[in-house]
């Protein structure tokens, strides 16, 4: 198993969504946050962006129907 030479590094990298001050920052909490931020950093997948576009279009069509004169 690879040993991380800087065991402090993960704490510094994971700065988003800091838990409450009295949550014990043990190996469990650190790994969980590393897992979580790895996923966050994958960005938003295309199918989800497509869905948002579709919702947007549907909404615009709906608005146009409701107020054709604006």
């Amino acid at each position, binding site marked *: *198993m*690879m*040993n*991380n030479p800087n*065991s402090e590094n*993960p704490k510094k990298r994971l700065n*988003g*969504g*800091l*838990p*409450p001050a009295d*949550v*014990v920052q*043990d*190996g*469990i*909490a*650190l*790994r*969980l*946050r*590393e*897992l*979580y*931020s*790895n*996923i*966050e*950093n*994958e*960005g*938003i*997948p295309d*199918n*989800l962006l497509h*869905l*948002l576009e579709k*919702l*947007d279009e549907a*909404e615009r069509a709906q608005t146009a129907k409701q107020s054709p004169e*604006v």
Partner: protein
Amino acid sequence: MADAENHQLEFKRELLKTLPSLRAFAISLTGTYDKADDLVQEAVVRAWSRQDSFELGTNMKAWLFTILRNEFYSQMRKRGREISDAEGTYTEQMSVHPNQIGALDMKDFLEALNKLAEDQREAIILVCASGFSYEEAANICGCAVGTIKSRINRARGRLQELLGIDGESDYGPEPHIAAVLRHTVSV
């Protein structure tokens, strides 16, 4: 008219900003990318249809997480235990980047997480990873703050047990503890 448009724009901006975290919540909650995908899509559609009821300036993240969580439990009720019984699927689904430190550790971790009771799992994710306060997590889960704290403690204990790591070490057990654990298991 301008107000309504502003509300829509702001709503979308906030929604987009929250999506990566909402997705991370869904994946860590369900343990699989596929199910998480469905869940996030359902939650987004639901949130979208209720956007008029969302008050700008209030906590969009907590609002979205609550919607996704409710969706998770209603899907679980529909499908029975299937959702939390998907061991073995993470390995293929989790994208592993070659230079990602501890990628294997992360897969083990996700598997262990999925063995927890749902209420413990969501509590530890919301507070230790999503960045909610105990109060916010309690609101999202509809329980008392003390309940959230004790669920987190139980989740932590169970994860330490499953992963064989003690609370102090960042990456894996100390060699002598690992040796003791191996010994205990093989006896």
